[in-house]
């Protein structure tokens, strides 16, 4: 057994053909993933057999890329609505947690609280909600004519939304607030795990504050150990102000591994994926992370231009800019770099090398676990489950069986009062 911090938590972040932007073009990627429920059932069973804490699904209510020619070169314009998907996976699995993203900008708290507690009942206490405020103009255009709300307004709405949902999950009704009212309690009994698990990913100051107040799990993007550690310490440091203990919140940064039996093989696999990224697709993805629309008009081999502050994802923008300056990268280099892992921490190597990296961040107090983002499916989830997980288990860093039955049990979270 590990003498250090116990065992890490692991999420299996599912995304159609894979997290790498060109994953769908890989010869071993399942290209029809976005319309194939059997594919997802297979992934869920693989993750459960490896004892992952949870499956994690992202979401956006719209085709993510406004330029249809760019969109048509990626697989991410098509997929299942994730809460429906998790309901189907709930009856095909027994122990693994089921976490879906849902927006506080384009839902009503009563409806969403009801949906997640339903998922919680039909899965026997395995549901979680990843709260997002939705930063894209594309989604905003599907929900009215007023456009994207300013960052601060989105968070004010999100704070009230989260409080209403938490109250409904505790059996309360009778809310009347600035953005929402909900008169009745839910028409369902209390969650089998007390309340569904609350996950959050916003890393701006307001996002961190909301997470410190309400989240059980925080998902984050951190490239370096120092970034991860700084985020970890900052967020844990905010908990006391809300009467919470450090262990009440599990911080799980994303990790995008490319794993193979030998390092050379893993590098070759990674290079193969990078070669499949069309330049215009990479630049478009980079533009969306920077929340600007016209990056394509700058010379692709030149540096990133000076950028104004945006109403979109402020934290992700800062991360990209910092990396471009630090490593002196051109737009093309930066685009490839971010397109590959979507701004998350990428690790390429053997099972032992990847386990070393995860262990260092876990034991170094920069993470309580990781949200694993395989580059393509099913191959790289299979590889992580059958090569990296056994290595982590051998080191005593990961469970060999589920200790409990609910997602809160897996994550070592208290049941809410």
């Amino acid at each position, binding site marked *: 057994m590990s003498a250090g911090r116990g065992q890490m938590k692991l999420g299996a972040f599912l995304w159609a053909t894979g997290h790498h932007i060109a994953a769908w073009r*890989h010869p071993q*990627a399942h290209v029809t993933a976005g319309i194939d429920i059997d594919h997802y059932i297979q992934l869920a069973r693989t993750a459960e057999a490896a004892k992952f804490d949870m499956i994690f699904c992202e979401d956006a209510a719209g085709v993510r890329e406004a330029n249809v020619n760019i*969109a048509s*070169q990626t*697989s991410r314009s098509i997929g299942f609505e994730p809460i429906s998907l998790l309901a189907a996976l709930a009856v095909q699995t027994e122990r693994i947690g089921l976490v879906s993203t849902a927006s506080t900008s384009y839902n009503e708290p009563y409806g969403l609280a009801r949906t997640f507690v339903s998922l919680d009942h039909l899965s026997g206490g395995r549901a979680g909600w990843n709260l997002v405020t939705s930063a894209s103009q594309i989604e905003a*255009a599907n929900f009215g004519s007023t456009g994207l709300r300013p960052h601060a307004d989105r968070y004010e709405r999100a704070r009230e939304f989260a409080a209403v949902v938490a109250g409904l999950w505790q059996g309360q009704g009778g809310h*009347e607030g600035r953005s929402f009212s909900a008169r009745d309690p839910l028409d369902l009994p209390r969650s089998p795990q007390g309340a569904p698990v609350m996950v959050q990913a916003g890393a701006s100051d307001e996002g961190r504050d909301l997470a410190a107040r309400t989240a059980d799990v925080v998902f984050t993007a951190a490239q370096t150990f120092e970034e991860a550690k700084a985020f970890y310490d900052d967020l844990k440091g905010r908990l006391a102000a809300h009467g919470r203990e450090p262990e009440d919140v599990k911080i799980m940064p994303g990790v995008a591994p490319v794993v193979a039996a030998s390092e050379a093989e893993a590098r070759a696999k990674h290079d193969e994926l990078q070669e499949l990224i069309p330049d215009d697709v990479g630049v478009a993805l980079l533009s969306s992370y920077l929340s600007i629309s016209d990056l394509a008009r700058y010379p692709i081999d030149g540096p990133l231009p000076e950028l104004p502050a945006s109403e979109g994802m402020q934290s992700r923008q800062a991360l990209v800019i910092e990396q471009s300056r630090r490593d002196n990268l051109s737009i093309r280099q930066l685009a490839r770099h971010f397109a590959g892992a979507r701004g998350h921490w990428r690790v390429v190597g053997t099972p032992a090398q990847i386990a070393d990296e995860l262990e260092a961040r876990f034991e170094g107090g920069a993470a309580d676990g990781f949200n694993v983002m395989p580059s393509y499916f099913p191959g790289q989830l299979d590889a992580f489950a059958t090569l990296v997980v056994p290595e982590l288990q051998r080191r005593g860093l990961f469970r060999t069986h589920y200790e409990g039955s609910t997602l809160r049990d897996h994550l070592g979270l208290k049941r809410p009062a």
Partner: protein
Amino acid sequence: MSHGRAGWNASMTSEPREAANFSRPEGFSGDDFHLRAEEFIGIVQGLWKGWDADALLFDKVGGRFFDPEKMHLLDHKGEYFSVRGPLNVARSPQDTPVLVMSGLSEPAMDIAARTADVVLLDEPSIEPAKAGDLKRRALTFGHRPEALKVLMNVTGSAEITAPDLFADRLEERFRSKACDGFNIAMPFTSALDDFVGLVLPELRRRGLVRSGYSAATLRAQLGLAGEDRQ
């Protein structure tokens, strides 16, 4: 996920209690409710057609996941909603999910005749004329009467003790063209068992109910495949 077996029951009954749980304590006015519902249903049906059935190419080598010509923006700007579209979900395997409508008041009858695949009517209030009326209205919107199925809501428990009488009642309704079929409300689990075990065999003996599924999708099963109601 179900390979073409989904349907949406668009309830046309305004419930103030529900509105109060969705940040509308003042509810909807009657006109507002119907105009909003009509716009809502039109948008949903439009979004369901945002991708052509053959839009996805899956061409790994050529780098073409879908054909841009076969993805369509909705660009809806209406009185109540503004929706750019398209959905980020592929075209339904049954073309579009089946649109069911229920709780119809007079203003909703035209909306249903124009847009619904299936209409649910309540038994106690039904006159045989109502199904005919709906189908005539459908015709005025350019649809074949067969493209709208009228199902009658029937409670299945009361007459289970006399399966023959229950079958008689359903047969009479069906043959008099009061409806195309039934939506059997099962107030408790054993009522379903009784209906399946006692009433269905009698209906099958009379040749009124299929003995197996003849089609893979809900739309085809209802005899609605190939009908375009929008």
